């Protein structure tokens, strides 16, 4: 079992229904339809999972902010306000969909969907657990970095098409920021690849299984603390959250690149933002925090325990991002770019160099 497709087939076989289903398709020679159906089911589950996660994350964000600020947060809709995201969705659907008169209508309408697609695509090579992965790409890490680098295109389109000075400035900032932070992100991730010798996310996770001296887990955070720190900062910049939320920076640019959006299109950006938050946290966990590795509990299938470990770690990272957001103010865009180009990239290169030397010398 290497991915979710095989997992589904295995489960069906274990239930004893797989051959039966296969027989339905075999006479007409349309096994590929069955394959397609299974893939569609996989993707539907993933999509549903992302949507539910996003809804939960918006609720969690509010609750964490509220806890930091000595408040309750949403309490009325559902138990402890758990249904608040549903209400928000209903409200946003009910809103008028305003397109500014002088906007480039086609691009304006297209941009929100372009923002959501990369956020969703990032999940494909993300290992949620033992064999819980849509597709174990051999270039998984590269794919993730490449796909996340697509987000600025949608932001730039949105900012440009809105025909508004604030949106344009927000878009320009977002692009400058994303370009300068993808480089340290990739450089920090490459050091890990030097250890594993593979870009596949599954290989990276399995390289982190086991422990040193029976206590310390063999996570890359302990070998690569600097790389972890760089990756963390760069990924928070990638997520576009405070202290690096220049694309929005609501006190300067009203709402940044989505100032002119309303209703469902606004919701798409919201969705994309939180999906991205979860995805980037998941990648961080995969690369540096041991992915789904954790102590094996007897009697429970590894599929379930690994999923639980992965979610726990990811939510811990998400919590950290939210916690940080409530603590620090926003940086200034030129300061951020300065840090990115003058500190983080040299540090990442240095880290790469030292790691290379150490590996060649056989120290680690």
């Amino acid at each position, binding site marked *: 079992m290497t991915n979710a497709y095989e997992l589904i087939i295995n489960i069906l076989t274990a239930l004893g229904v797989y051959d039966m289903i296969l027989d339905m398709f075999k006479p007409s020679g349309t096994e590929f339809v069955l394959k397609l159906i299974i893939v569609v089911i996989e993707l539907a589950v993933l999509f549903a999972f992302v949507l539910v996660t996003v809804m939960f994350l918006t609720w969690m964000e509010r609750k964490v*902010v509220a806890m*930091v*600020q*000595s*408040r309750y947060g949403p309490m009325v809709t559902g138990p402890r306000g758990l249904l608040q995201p549903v209400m928000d969705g209903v409200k946003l659907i009910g809103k008028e969909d305003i397109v500014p008169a002088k906007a480039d209508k086609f691009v304006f309408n297209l941009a929100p969907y372009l923002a959501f697609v990369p956020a969703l695509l990032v999940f494909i090579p993300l290992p949620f657990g033992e064999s819980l992965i849509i597709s174990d790409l051999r270039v998984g890490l590269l794919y993730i970095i490449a796909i996340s680098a697509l987000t600025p295109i949608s932001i730039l389109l949105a900012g440009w098409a809105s025909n508004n*000075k*604030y949106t344009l*400035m927000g878009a320009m900032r977002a692009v400058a920021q994303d370009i300068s932070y993808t480089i340290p992100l990739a450089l920090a991730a490459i050091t890990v690849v030097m250890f594993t010798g593979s870009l596949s996310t599954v290989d990276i996770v399995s390289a982190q299984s086991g422990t040193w001296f029976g206590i310390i887990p063999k996570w890359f955070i302990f070998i690569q603390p600097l790389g972890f720190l760089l990756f963390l900062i760069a990924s928070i910049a990638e997520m576009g959250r*405070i*202290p690096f*939320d220049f694309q929005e*920076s*609501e*006190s*300067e*640019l*009203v709402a940044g690149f989505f100032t002119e959006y309303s209703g469902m299109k606004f919701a798409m950006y919201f969705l994309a933002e939180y999906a991205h938050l979860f995805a980037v946290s998941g990648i961080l966990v995969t690369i540096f925090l041991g992915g789904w590795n954790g102590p094996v509990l007897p009697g429970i299938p590894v599929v379930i325990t690994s999923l639980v470990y992965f979610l726990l770690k990811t939510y811990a990272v998400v919590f950290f991002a939210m916690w940080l957001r*409530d*603590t*620090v*103010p*926003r*940086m*200034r*865009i*030129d*300061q951020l770019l300065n840090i990115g180009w003058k500190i983080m990239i040299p540090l990442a290169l240095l880290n790469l160099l030292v790691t290379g030397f150490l590996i060649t010398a056989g120290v680690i």
Partner: protein
Amino acid sequence: MQTDELLINMGPVHPSTHGVLRFKLRMDGEIIKDCQLVLGYLHRGTEKLGEMKTYQQVLPYTDRLDYISAFPNNYCYVKAIEELAGIEVPLRAEYIRVLVMELNRIVNHIVSIGSLLMDLGAATMIMWGFREREKALQLFEMLCGARMTFNYIKPGGVREDLPEGFIPKLNEFLEEMEMRIKDYEQLINSNEIFLMRMNGIGVISAKDAINHGLTGPTLRGSGVNHDLRKLEPYSIYHDLDFKACSRPEGDSYARYMVRIDEMWESLHILRQVVDTMPEAKVISTSKYGVAPMTGVPSTVSTYFPRIFTPPAGEVYTRIEAPKGELGFYIASDGSTKPYRVKIRSPSFCNLTALSGMVKGLKIPDLIAAFGTMDIVLGDVDR
């Protein structure tokens, strides 16, 4: 490189212009080449109203100038009337006045720092600030029945004496406040991102600050130790031990730190006031006083005459309001209504320095520098 200038209208509806201020920015990319302020969106004609209403009726309108800290407005207007008519004020009333004004200074600085941090993107501080502000507002509510527009200080004293249980609650607040300010300092003071945003931003030299007529923490952040409570002690300030806080740097961080220091000083003043408050009546009956209506037990003091005619003349008083120097000029022609009321509001005068301060900076710096000016649009436009 050939670049075009970008004209940006920031406001009057914008999240961080603290109301309805409008900046007309000429930008070169993100760099501000010129900043023009457009005022008057909240003009309510308070000065003209002052000519149409009787002396007493103007008083509630002064609450609405600087609505974050209304007690100093009240006090300054009342002080002008008292000087005009020569009304003596009982000592206990003066103590209560100083008490509420210093409490209001803390409230004002909390809101100022909170909204500064919110403009910088850290929403936590304003929520924490409002948590403590709520406690102070409850004290105000106990005292005079209103939370923001107090109408409490009257010519010749204050409206009502301290209610039962006020002093213990105040002491509780002072004790809690100490810990809370420590929390604020821990959250903000040494935060590197905050320092990056504030240090060296919006610098104004002492000379420029004086020439622009800056007052209050904004001036003291430039190293000019100008505090009217020290220079021209009014009320009971000459009996109190406190120091005027100032910082030499003249940048946004200095102005922020002056506010934090002033909160500590205000706590110190409040403790002294509570310890030394005398027991006595709270409203003067000396010159213009009339006896209360007989027979009916009154809950509030009705000593001040309903028809009040001060002698003809003019008076200018100034006090150190939390935002700076607040002045009231009142000209009287001996009738029941002022002939002219002129308000020298600190927010308006402080705002004049902003466009010079931000030239060559970026939009985020404009927000940061503007946040440390601590203005209220009700006070700017009057």
